[in-house]
């Protein structure tokens, strides 16, 4: 049992943190957000140069063979900087699906391009009715000779507006919520019959609604075995939850630092407001929530690589519950302690609050996962004695 980072991991942490400290201050971020893409292609190039975009991929695919710990390091730093780029969409989600389900031809064609920053991907999975059920898919894929024809509508596709290609989930058999019968397809963003409506999300990032009307793809667009995609989708979502937990922890730490600085410097009644015990205790409540979140983040990072899907599923529900609750506490108290300034768009604090709120809604909020845990027997690590 060891929480220490290796020498390489420490170097990675230093270089990522330096990149954001030097190139990603809040004013710069505002500029990125206001640009046509809503994020920075220059920053994306720098991610590529640092090796962040290929981090989880094998070396033969232009990557570094990193695991959940490396992803945790990167996304925690992104959480602090409130990074806008499509890292989760391209590297963690779509990259993860390719890594776990792609054949060698698909992997060697696409992963190196993700790693060098020239290919953007997104994962088009959720639908209007699916809420947090990963098995709820009504988009259909019908085999017609040598091609599949996709019809349906995908919703809240993270960074789906800028993706060059989409990984689309579609039903090849079974009923709406069957875990069997789901397949994944690589679809070109410019394919005939595919239309999209991009928009900004409340945290300043981007998403898209995707319409698929008679979109034809060849059989080699199939990612993994037809009808057997659910375990892959679940595994990749678990990896995304672990990555988001670290991003949330980064955001919480930064918001707390800002808040404590504010308590030290803001004066009322002739004294710094941090001298008031009632405010001190609220700042401590934030810290406690952060330490809980950070602790469960390590658990999530450890369990992201777990092969037993049921154990991993339970663990991630515990992670997402704690992260959601801690994020809520930190976001709300942090905003409250700043007083009026915390309400303004021009101040950074509120943007952490908004990102934390969005992170809670991604892949199941705290209440949803608590309900899932109530159906299991509670969170329990594999091998742990009950």
């Amino acid at each position, binding site marked *: 049992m060891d*929480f220490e980072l290796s020498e390489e991991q420490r170097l990675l942490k230093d270089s990522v943190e330096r990149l954001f400290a030097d190139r990603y201050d809040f004013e710069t971020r505002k500029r990125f957000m206001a640009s046509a893409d809503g994020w920075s292609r220059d920053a994306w190039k720098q991610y590529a140069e640092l090796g962040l975009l290929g981090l989880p991929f094998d070396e033969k695919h232009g990557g570094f063979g990193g695991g959940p710990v490396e992803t945790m390091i990167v996304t925690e730093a992104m959480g602090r900087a409130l990074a806008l780029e499509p890292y989760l969409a391209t590297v963690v989600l779509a990259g993860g699906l390719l890594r776990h389900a792609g054949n060698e031809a698909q992997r060697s064609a696409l992963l190196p391009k993700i790693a060098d920053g020239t290919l953007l991907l997104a994962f088009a999975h959720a639908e209007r009715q699916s809420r947090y059920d990963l098995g709820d898919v009504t988009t259909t894929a019908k085999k017609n000779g040598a091609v599949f024809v996709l019809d349906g509508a995908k919703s809240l596709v993270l960074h789906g507006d800028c993706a060059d290609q989409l990984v689309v989930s579609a039903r090849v058999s079974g009923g709406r919520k069957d875990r069997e019968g789901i397949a994944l397809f690589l679809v070109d963003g410019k394919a005939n019959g595919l239309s999209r409506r991009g928009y900004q999300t409340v945290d300043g990032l981007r998403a898209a609604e995707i319409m698929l009307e008679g979109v034809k793809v060849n059989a080699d667009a199939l990612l993994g075995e037809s009808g057997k995609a659910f375990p892959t989708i679940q595994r990749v979502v678990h990896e995304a939850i672990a990555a988001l937990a670290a991003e949330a922890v980064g955001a919480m730490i930064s918001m707390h630092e800002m808040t404590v600085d504010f308590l030290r410097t803001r004066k009322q009644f002739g004294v710094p407001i*941090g001298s008031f015990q009632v405010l001190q205790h609220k700042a401590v409540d934030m810290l406690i929530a952060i330490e809980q979140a950070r602790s469960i983040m390590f658990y999530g990072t450890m369990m992201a690589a777990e092969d037993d899907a049921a154990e991993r599923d339970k663990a991630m529900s*515990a992670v997402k519950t*704690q992260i959601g609750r801690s994020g809520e506490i930190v976001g709300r108290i942090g905003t409250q302690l700043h007083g009026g300034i915390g309400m303004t768009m021009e101040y950074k604090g509120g943007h952490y609050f908004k990102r934390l709120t969005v992170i809670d809604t991604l892949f199941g909020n705290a209440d949803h996962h608590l309900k899932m845990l109530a159906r299991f027997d509670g969170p329990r690590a594999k091998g742990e004695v009950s």
Partner: protein
Amino acid sequence: MDLRFTPEENAFREEVRAFFKKNVPEQTRRKLIEGRRLSKDEIVGWQRILNKQGWAVPHWPKDHGGTGWTSTQQYIFLEEREKAPAPEPVAFGSQMVGPVIIAFGSEQQKKKFLPRIANVDDFWCQGFSEPGSGSDLASLKTTAKREGNQYVINGQKTWTTYAQYADWIFVLARTDAAAKKQEGISFILVDMKTPGVTVRPIQTIDGGHEVNEVFFDEVKVPAENLVGQENKGWDYAKFLLSNERTGIARVGISKERIRRVKELASIELDGDKPLIDDERFRMKIASVEVELKSLEMLQLRVVAARRTGDNKPDPASSILKIKGSEIQQAISELALEVVGPYAMPNDPHQDDLLRNEPPVGPDWASPIAPTYFNMRKVSIYGGTNEIQKNIIAKAVLGL
């Protein structure tokens, strides 16, 4: 980073678990599971079983009877002991005064007291709090006046846990009235049989008798019972209180108590179905379990940090104390919800397994409400949760 235990550590866990399984007396184990209070004989008897095994004071230096275990092994031992469940060691000897004597005591004190602490030949209690000195402990008024080769102690201590069983008490007393309040305090060991020492019981809201008032009226103590230097007692007390936080999170105990809540909720019917089938109730349990998992990971982080050599009292201990106490209380609330209306009967014989007349209601019911009331203490003792927040605000946040 690797959060798994090594094969050697897992083997150690098996060894420890087998020992607890074999050696915790059945009646003691049953009382702990059911939330019944242990007698002095049961507490002492268990400690002697541990001492025979050489495990009474694992955290002490090896030449004083410690085991030389790593901090991870100590953690495993703690967790297995809590989950067995086996009695907690009485902290006042092995966790509190023992380490103080080891760190600051004279050779003579070490020789005289340490082996007797390990075997509980001397049962110790703690003379810190006073009626006017709770959170503001340094304001204490009990005095020790040096007269020749003895101290004469006058004053009153309170909340003295197990004073009714104790052979010895370690006392913080003022030896210099003129000095700043933290600087005039000494740490003195007092034989409870000394003339002038009186113990008066305090009954707590759960109906139990754990704590007492202890009065000192012209109590004459040999000067050799002073620990370390005169007027340095506050430093020793701070050292002692930082040790008190070890294991304060009570993760294993909470795991065992959640297991028990689930077990009882599987028996107790709510309408036609066991309460455990109610989704709302299951969500409440799951909610506590999530927090407990976070707490367990936090505890492991503290244990790992300690292993890497950083032995400073960690501000994380305050967080462990706050969350650990909240979780213990939450579980006692869940148990109260399970027992439902049979929380009502007051049962003066709840701790007696050999009673003649059965209790009113289910035989597991009567300790539950008292435990719920008793658990309110955990956010009060050892520095209230509010004092812990003051400590964090100052030491960690610099406010």
